[in-house]
């Protein structure tokens, strides 16, 4: 019953986002695209960070590689949709190969290694000027159509990626794979002992965490029409996505979507009103969340919270009566 409620809420949310091109102005559509984009990346990250419990910070590397793979394929004459598919596959293969190497690390070393991947990808992209245009960036062929049509198309493609990612996460959650990943999250050695093939499970989770980011990156590159190494491989992005998942609730199905939605909306409000302090406010949200929402928005016991609040309100006047 509760599950139906949750999935109903998800479906309603998707419908609301999908309806923006019909009802709202361009700015709202842009926000809707951001929400779909970050939700898809958050759902992806959840495979490795939420289910498996590995502190992976390589999201931006996959996103950026997706951007560049899609853009370069298009510039070399590959049709649009094929270029997106190519970028997705390229990132998947890259992540699987990288995972086989880097997943031998644990804890802090894994975190550092995965951040270093982002730095390394950016440095190589910047210095390999003949292929990637270096620091000057790369122009990507623009999508055909009026601005409204383009943003509607981008929105629907991103939403489609989000839905596929979400369905995959439901499937993984209920399958043997998901069970194994949760075992790894609790105790990797014990999981290994009882027969979970930890190495291949982790590689699958890592690849899943990359593949949707790659697809999103390719579509994003076509949408904005220009990419450069600093924006594509940004450390801020690589930390923002885990923060969104933590905000919603790591390891849950709906947490990433909820967290990404809340975070993007908050970010828009702060961009609009406190441009200069935007970064500090986001930092403040992160600090607040670590201390007050350690398990995310989904895990709050709203009923207990409400009861506590009511009790407090009911108790409050009593001391006043006594003293008077």
């Amino acid at each position, binding site marked *: 019953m509760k599950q139906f409620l949750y999935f109903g809420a998800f479906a309603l949310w998707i419908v609301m986002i999908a309806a923006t091109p019909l009802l709202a102005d361009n700015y709202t559509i842009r926000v809707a695209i951001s929400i779909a984009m970050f939700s898809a990346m958050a759902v992806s990250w959840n495979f490795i960070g939420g289910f498996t*419990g590995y502190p992976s910070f390589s999201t931006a590397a996959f996103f950026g590689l997706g951007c560049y793979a899609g853009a370069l394929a298009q510039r070399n004459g590959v049709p649009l949709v094929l270029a997106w598919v190519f970028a997705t596959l390229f990132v998947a293969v890259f992540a699987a190969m990288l995972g086989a190497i880097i997943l*031998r690390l644990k804890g802090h070393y894994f*975190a550092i290694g995965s951040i270093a991947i982002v*730095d390394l990808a950016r440095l190589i992209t910047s*210095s390999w000027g003949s292929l990637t245009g270096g620091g000057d960036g790369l122009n990507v062929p623009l999508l055909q159509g009026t601005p409204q049509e383009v943003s509607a198309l981008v929105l629907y493609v991103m939403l489609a990626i989000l839905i596929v990612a979400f369905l995959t996460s439901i499937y993984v959650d209920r399958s043997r794979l998901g069970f194994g990943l949760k075992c790894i999250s609790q105790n990797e050695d014990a999981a290994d002992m009882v027969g979970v093939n930890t190495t291949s499970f982790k590689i699958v989770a890592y690849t899943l965490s990359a593949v949707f980011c790659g697809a999103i990156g390719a579509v994003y590159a076509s949408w904005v029409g220009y990419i450069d190494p600093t924006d594509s491989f940004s450390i801020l992005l690589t930390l923002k996505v885990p923060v969104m998942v933590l905000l919603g609730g790591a390891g849950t199905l709906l947490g990433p979507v909820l967290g990404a939605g809340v975070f993007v909306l908050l970010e828009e409000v702060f961009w609009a009103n406190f441009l200069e*302090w*935007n970064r500090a406010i986001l930092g403040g949200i992160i600090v607040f969340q*670590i201390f007050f929402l*350690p398990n995310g928005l989904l895990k709050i016991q709203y009923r207990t919270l409400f009861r506590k609040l009511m009790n407090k309100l009911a108790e409050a006047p009593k001391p006043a009566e006594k003293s008077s």
Partner: protein
Amino acid sequence: MDIIQILLNGIVLGSLYACIAIGFSLVWGVLNIINMLHGSFIILGGYLAFFAWQYSHINPIFLLPIIATLLFGLGYLLQYFFINKVVMSPVLTTLTLTFGLDMILYNLMTVFFTATPRRVTLDLGSLNLGDMYLPVDRLLGMGLALLLTGLLFLVMRASKIGRAIVAVRMDRQAATLMGIRVNNVYAITFGIGAFMAGAAGVIFSLVFPITTNLTGTFLGKAFVICVIGGLGSVPGALIGGIALGLIESFAGYTIGPQNATTVGFVLMLFLLIVRPTGLVGVKGYE
């Protein structure tokens, strides 16, 4: 270019790198925290040095103890009131928290100091030995960096607080039972990390232009050096720093300066996988 010149450049750069990484390594080794604030601490130290120098025209070298002590205070307070609360949590939580704090500090710096590159120019000239060329400000920076590193080594080895830090690193619970106030030791350790970062920032402002955009670069260097040298020892950070300085210097000469940083990162990933304890992998701050 002469090979000796490259070697010298590498060693000078490497000593500065060691000074950057040593506080980061201490915090990681003792508190088990990846301190994303480290880059911003360095830049903050550099900015404070620049503005203090601009207003008072006192040589920043004399201001270094004051600025570094200010950063010690900042680090102590941050650790005592924020990071101590989650210090036992998994790396995801602690890293994210320090990153959140870093975003706040970064924003404050860009608002109050703006991102214009600034440099303390002392015009000390340069030493010419034969056909080698060594700017005096760099030599001075190297001397200071090595001095600070040596001092930290002595503090860790001989002072009461240094021994307490080593004890907490070895066994937190046993240290508590021996009457060490662990939270206080953690805060002091983080403070020392910030102190070293601030001092490194002052030194850097003498040698390179300082801007907020460099925080990520410095942080990346600290990662690489910690992995090369191994965590949790002063000699490790020193060796890691000088190794990275030499590697970048030689790589810059052979395959171009734009690729020098890349080589460092590749080496780091390689070492992470092959030998995650680093070249000088010792167990504690003995």
